């Protein structure tokens, strides 16, 4: 008779142990099983293409001490949970937790070698920190704005109508009054930024020209909940997300499309953890438009002769799918590349760190608001990498990435044009 196999006694080693709400027990498991292998600090070795662009974690690359890495955060979580430290013991704990851009680079690299959820751990740590020490003063205006205006930009709701008026002139449906198959969920940043609102108009024009049955919510649109989710305010996230799910379900839309990577990742992945269930599909506009291109519904009329490189927004890429142990870390990687390749005259050249290995722009996780210097330093690293490809333009489709890359580029000797994918596309139509 064959001898019985000696398997681990703790069943958590036998299969994925982190399903369901991420609580203290799961946080401890994740932190305790860090083996200090340091993969959270580097691009996966197989994919390292040069010494210069071998790092994955902006925070660790900038602040150097291991406390600012995934490994250091695991050590901190373990010390806190095991009662060896308290959140208020050291003022640097705030920086360690909140300078992180929550980009998920460490998380993706770590998933190559173990079943872990580092970003969920960081979110849990931020929540616990805020419970104990309060909201960061730098982030208080953002949080107050969410509570007061349901957006993060301290803007009245009616401000969303600035661009909505333009769209209404195009005959775009107002879903508060009419029905449509598709909701174009604009998001706070595209919706309220003077600098970025042209993108929404361009997207609406592209969809309209292709007879897509879609509409907008205008001033009744709420924040998707991504900022409070990332900075550690789960109650505020749940309030906004639940309201959105209920509203979208009531509207009867089949698809919610959004051009914002942050909204996309949040609605697609994070909403799944809530009790209210989604009755709609979630797509990034790039996914929707790629289908139109593949179906040959979009005809380009003009040539745009330019060498471009594509910046993968974290929440459109590695952070845009729930983790299935052992399965690919998927994301919207190919769709924007297909669109770029379809534009006549555009030459796509790739950076070294792309897709699940992409270097973050620096604008996520609250860093854009609370740690501007660091956010812009991270952006400059990305722009330098983009410049090294020989491209003259970096293209992306995330308002945080666009804004932060622009801010980071100020003062850089070599200029790099930063453009939204759909604005570039519009030039060829």
């Amino acid at each position: 008779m064959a001898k019985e196999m000696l398997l681990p006694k703790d069943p958590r080693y036998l299969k994925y142990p982190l399903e369901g709400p991420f609580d203290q027990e799961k946080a401890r498991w994740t932190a305790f099983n860090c083996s200090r292998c340091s993969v959270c600090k580097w691009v996966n070795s197989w994919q390292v293409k040069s010494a210069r662009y071998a790092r994955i974690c902006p925070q660790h690359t900038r602040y150097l001490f291991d406390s600012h890495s995934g490994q250091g955060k695991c050590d901190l979580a373990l010390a806190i949970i095991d009662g060896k430290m308290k959140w208020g013991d050291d003022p640097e704990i705030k920086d360690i937790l909140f300078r992180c851009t929550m980009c998920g680079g460490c998380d993706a690299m770590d998933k190559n070698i173990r079943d872990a959820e580092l970003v969920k751990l960081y979110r849990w740590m931020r929540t616990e920190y805020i419970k104990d020490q309060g909201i960061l003063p730098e982030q208080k205006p953002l949080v107050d704005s969410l509570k007061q205006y349901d957006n993060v930009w301290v803007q009245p709701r009616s401000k969303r109508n600035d661009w909505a008026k333009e769209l209404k002139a195009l005959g775009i449906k107002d879903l508060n009054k009419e029905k449509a198959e598709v909701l174009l969920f604009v998001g706070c940043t595209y919706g309220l930024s003077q600098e970025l609102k042209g993108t929404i108009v361009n997207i609406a024009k592209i969809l309209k020209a292709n007879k897509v049955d879609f509409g907008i919510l205008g001033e009744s649109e709420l924040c998707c909940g991504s900022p409070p989710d990332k900075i550690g305010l789960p109650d505020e996230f749940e309030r906004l997300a639940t309201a959105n799910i209920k509203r979208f379900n009531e509207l009867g839309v089949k698809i919610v499309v959004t051009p914002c990577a942050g909204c996309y990742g949040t609605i697609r992945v994070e909403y799944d953890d809530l009790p209210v269930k989604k009755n709609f599909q979630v797509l990034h506009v790039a996914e929707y438009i790629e289908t139109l291109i593949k179906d040959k519904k979009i005809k380009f009329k003009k040539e745009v002769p330019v060498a471009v490189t594509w910046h993968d927004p974290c929440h459109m890429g590695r952070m845009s799918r729930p983790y299935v142990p052992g399965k690919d870390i998927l994301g919207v990687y190919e769709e924007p590349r297909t669109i770029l390749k379809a534009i006549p005259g555009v030459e796509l050249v790739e950076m070294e760190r792309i897709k699940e290995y992409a270097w973050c722009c620096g604008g996520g996780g609250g860093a854009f608001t609370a740690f501007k210097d660091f956010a812009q330093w991270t952006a400059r690293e990305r722009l330098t990498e983009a410049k090294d490809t020989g491209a003259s333009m970096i293209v992306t489709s995330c308002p945080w990435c666009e804004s932060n890359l622009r801010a980071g580029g100020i003062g850089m000797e070599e200029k790099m044009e930063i453009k939204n994918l759909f604005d570039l596309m519009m030039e060829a139509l």
Partner: protein
Amino acid sequence: MTETAKNDERHQQILKAFQAAIGVENVKDNPATVNAYYGDWLPPKILGMSMPPEFVVLPNGTMETQAVIKICNRYKIPFIPVGSNQWSLTGSPNRPHTVIIDCKRMGAIHEIDEKNMYAVIEPLCTLAQVQAEAYKRGLYIGSPEASATASAIGGHVFQGMWGVGYRLGVAYRNILGIEWVLPNGEILRTGSFSQDGDNGFWGEGPGPDLRGMLRGYAGAMGGVGMVTKMAVKLHPYPGPKVWPVEGTIPNQTSTLPEDRFKWYMVKYESLEDAIKFMYEVGRAEIAGVVQKWPTVYYIWWWANSNEEYWTEWQKRTFQDNVKNAVGVCLWGFCSGKQLEYEKRVLEDIIKETGGKPVKQEVYDMWVPRTANNWIRDTHGSRMMRPSGTFLALRLQTDTLKFSIGQVKTGYKWVEKFSPPILDSDGPDWIGGYDFGHFGFGETDFPVEKNAEVLGDLMGKLLEMVKEDVGNGLENGVGPFLGGAYHQMAAPVFKYDKLLKGIKRAIDPNRVSNPPHQIDPDA
């Protein structure tokens, strides 16, 4: 670091001295920082045997490192240098007032000399970084089983038992010039750096070759003062300029050019037959890698999730197919013709020694996903996957033939200690090096990561080691690294006087890396 200690006058003096030497922003003593510098995958932290350092300092370059080490000597406080901090072998402080010298500001590749085939690097440079730059130039540097995330300098001064050591020499013998801050703070330049600080072309002389004071196996195995710059050998490489990877994490595969690389997975009836085959391959002076991996290695490196690991293990996917198998990677270093010649020779040897290819489906599972990449990076940290950590029974460096006995006695100990050792199918890693002129044996297995289990196992292993020492360590040295290793092995192999003498001469204050080094006063 308690508040009392921080307010201590001596602590403040040392803090100010470090800050003056390398800048305020490069010295930290706060709890959140030091807390990140005492954990590793080994038992000490779990068993409460390690403690946070008092300071973490980030010097930049040789002069700042020298200043830091001189301060450590002035105040007689221990220091531990760390490289890329991958696994942090014996890098955990085990006594109060330790200073961690972190090399995060020393990550430059100073030079890659294509013509003379060497690279001059700083301690943070990982092997993956050096590899990437080398590939572009048609050159190669190996990677140990631990992973290419390891510091290249750390790998060279520790063991450097990388697979390609079979053909290209193990890493510790690929060291050329060294710029090195000794434990007492003096700067020593060896090899051609002693004549010209920018030229790393040769490793020897003039004068005595001092590399043995620093490196494995079994010199000090690193941690003697701190190496701040090293020239390492690079080798001809017939592969692509950028490492070929397809797929997405964690399902990645690599396909190497068929006209230059070919893996053979050859199965034998017995371990003895497998080792005989390894000797024959060496005798023919062919191949780039010759390794007899234990079954547990196959699944460690192959599985993409815990569930996949334990499901495949229970299905015996690897146990029934790769037991006593040898992996041979032929490299056409010079040409495709070389590869064709070596294929013919190897196939004759396989025939003569009665080898059988492993099942095609197992070959197809293993080679693209693991073996091809294994010459760049093993994903060694997957070894923690199934149970949170792993340990080794013994390490042994001798001949290939000797390894047979060593791993076979290892089977008995593994059996005896199971549980807490988990299912591992008689682990027996035997690596062939220098065309099979020497062999390295290691017996690694998964063990559950918790204090109770590890405490129990460490006690048992200590009993085994006592018996081994009594037997003259003829079956290898137990799973203890650093100081404990030397304390045990040095008297048996009679290098203790030499190592202690060196330590006394260059580390009069006994400040250099106490967990890692032999204690001359013990």
